[in-house]
């Protein structure tokens, strides 16, 4: 996603890592219950066409909720998960398609720090052995003495000093922060260029998080590191990162310099995330008009823009479809009294017919019922929430004997659009999409 609007930020230099149209798919087997019910397994598009450049010396934040694909992206970059397609180049060297053995020499240049420091350290080895082990993997050092000397150096660099106190300890003897320091010592001992930090402080206590972040910034300056900081926490990312990429369902929906993302979030999802953070300030309250629902099932993602079902600013071309109709109908029903609900429910047939994504769908009337009755429910819905963005996506409704047929506007895939120094993956900034929506609106106006 390197738009023309992107220029080198202060301090950041040439491109170190080039990621182009990267895809990672996982095949998933359904749960035990799903399999019992004969539900087929599917594939999750965990990383869905990610393009980005990592510049030497910068801190790039990958921010997203669970299921956004941020962790899979980080693991794909390191070759821990195989990319399905696309390219990752580390200063010209292609990383995808390599075997484990071919990947090994490059591992000296890219390192990862995992979320759980405790789980990242082999409980059966001493800290000294763990920290020095990477040198043995790559046969960089031979001889006990030198290994020990290098381990001492790395431990002291991350503040585990005097190192002699830690060399012979086991991971269980250390506190959480100390363990994460040991993990960092291990990551820097090979002298990498890039460090992928996957939620490095989220399992640590509040009072010590800042200390580890500070250490990471020191290491970056001293050793000339470049970071990819993966997190769900926009607050630490704001402080820590030079640039931020916001991810949603495997895509980067917005990427740009951190100050601009926070000052002027362009994607509605970014804006919603920022407003949802509970701040330790009782004068501020979390707004109530938050996006509805949760991150949808990645096995069958929404049509068009993946965020459209939750987006307060979605409009005609964002990808409205059958499942959105069901969501809206069910939402209405939670607001009705039990009697009203039962009366309305009796008019509608099998709702599962709406579960297959389609841009044209029959809202079925109950068995033996007339199509007009289903249309009545649809009109009641429209009357209740006339301003819901959903209605903009409804192109036409026709009453048929078996129900009411709803046709949606043709979904449009969002494109990457440069806005200022950011790149946004949203129709709101795409003149083509806006123009099309205008056309649709004027067409509807004439009909009316």
């Amino acid at each position: 996603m390197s738009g023309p609007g992107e220029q080198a930020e202060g301090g950041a230099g040439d491109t170190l890592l080039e990621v182009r149209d990267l895809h990672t798919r996982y095949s998933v087997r359904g749960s035990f219950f799903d399999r019992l019910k004969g539900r087929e397994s599917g594939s999750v598009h965990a990383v869905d066409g990610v393009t980005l450049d990592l510049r030497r010396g910068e801190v790039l934040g990958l921010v997203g909720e669970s299921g956004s694909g941020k962790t899979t992206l980080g693991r794909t970059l390191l070759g821990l998960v195989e990319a399905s397609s696309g390219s990752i180049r580390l200063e010209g060297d292609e990383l995808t398609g390599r075997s484990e053995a071919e990947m090994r020499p490059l591992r000296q240049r890219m390192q990862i720090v995992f979320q759980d420091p405790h789980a990242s350290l082999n409980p059966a080895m001493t800290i000294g052995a763990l920290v020095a082990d990477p040198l043995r993997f790559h046969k960089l050092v031979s001889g006990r003495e030198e290994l020990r000397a290098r381990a001492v150096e790395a431990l002291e660099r991350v503040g585990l000093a005097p190192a002699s106190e830690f060399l012979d300890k086991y991971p269980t003897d250390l506190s959480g922060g100390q363990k994460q320091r040991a993990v960092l010592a291990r990551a820097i001992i090979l002298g990498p260029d890039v460090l992928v930090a996957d939620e490095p402080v989220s399992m640590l206590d509040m009072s010590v998080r800042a200390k580890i972040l500070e250490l990471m910034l020191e290491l970056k300056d001293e050793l000339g590191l470049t970071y990819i900081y993966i997190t769900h926490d926009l607050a630490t990312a704001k402080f820590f990162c030079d640039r931020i990429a916001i991810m949603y369902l495997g895509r980067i929906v917005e990427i740009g310099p951190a100050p601009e993302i926070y000052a002027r979030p362009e994607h509605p999802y970014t804006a919603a995330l920022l407003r949802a953070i509970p701040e330790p300030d009782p004068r501020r309250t979390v707004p109530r008009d938050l996006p509805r629902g949760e991150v949808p099932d990645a096995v069958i993602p929404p049509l068009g823009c993946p965020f459209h079902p939750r987006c307060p600013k979605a409009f005609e071309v964002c990808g409205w479809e059958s499942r959105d109709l069901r969501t809206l109908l069910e939402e209405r029903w939670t607001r009705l009294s039990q009697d009203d609900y039962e009366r309305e429910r009796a008019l509608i047939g099998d709702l599962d017919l709406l579960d297959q994504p389609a841009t044209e769908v029959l809202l079925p009337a109950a068995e033996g019922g007339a199509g007009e009755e289903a249309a009545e429910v649809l009109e009641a819905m429209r009357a209740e929430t006339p301003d819901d963005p959903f209605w903009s996506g409804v192109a036409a409704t026709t009453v048929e004997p078996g129900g009411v047929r709803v046709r949606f506007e043709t979904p449009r895939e969002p494109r990457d659009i440069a806005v200022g120094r950011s790149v946004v993956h949203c129709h709101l900034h795409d003149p083509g999409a806006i123009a099309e929506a205008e056309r649709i609106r004027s067409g509807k106006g004439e009909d009316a």
Partner: protein
Amino acid sequence: MNANGNGNGEPILDVHDLRVWYGTGGEPVRAVDGVSFSIGAGETLGLVGESGCGKSTLGRGVLGLLPDAAAVDGSVRFAGRELVGVSQKEMHDMRGPELGLIFQEPMTRLDPLQTIEAHFREALHTHRPELDKEEVRRRSLEALAGMGIPRTRFAQYPHEFSGGMRQRIMIALALVLEPKVLIADEPTTALDVIVEAQILGILADLRRNFDTAILLITHNLGIVAEACDRVAVMYAGEIVEEGDAREVFAEPAHPYTRELLRSTISLETTGLNYIPGAPPSLINPPPACRFHPRCPSAMRVCAELHPIEVRAPAGQRVSCWLHGPESEIPPGGREELERRQFLEAEEA
């Protein structure tokens, strides 16, 4: 602001000098060590602290959900009734209709082989046997719909719901019995930020529309600021400061509260702050004031005498010698405490 309940002076939950110690085979772990607080009807008290400060143990202690290896001492009065020493059976009968609970991971609390509706049926049958079938159904459906669970999904099983939905189901399941006190232990920690905000909105509505008192246990100061009337700050098994949430956040009286607020990274953060050292072991906590080894304002008296609880200028209760009482501080006690510096390695 309903600092002491909705006008009717008597608190619904009154905890006095509660102690919960765990046996380990060696020295006991003093997870909760002399804690007192009270909650009025319709009030939300936030209990904050870092991991391992005893806040979850405190919640479980109030609910009588402690393992066999725990010893309890002190008093927990619920609506005038003493809960410490009550039999397991009686406690079990009270959990639900009197004391509701919401946990961090709802999936572990829902029976995977029962539909959502069946969970409600069972809860109501057990605790409200007088209700007839139709009424049970009506109440469960209203509770679920009220939490935004689609009505068509009431017959589904817990695994068919997302994390946020499950937490809504748990809240509905707790509320359908109309408990007087609701204890929520990190109810949003496993959730994404937008869903977390949705749940916080639900809790805020509860506060407004019901008479339920809520004890909200969390490590996230932001959530307390968002959802609580009052806040109690725990450190190493003790409550070090307690008072009106706005006052405490605006003018923290205890250095730990102050430093914790300063070290929390929020959107407003411009510089990194942290508290030197690490939270202490609860087996052998520091003597006198437990925070003194990490405290930037420590005085000589802090290492010698346990602080006495006083009212801070802004009205909150605080246990810190900085606020006196002057008469109890020995001569020279206010001098700065000379301490060894923390080694970098001990931080974190």
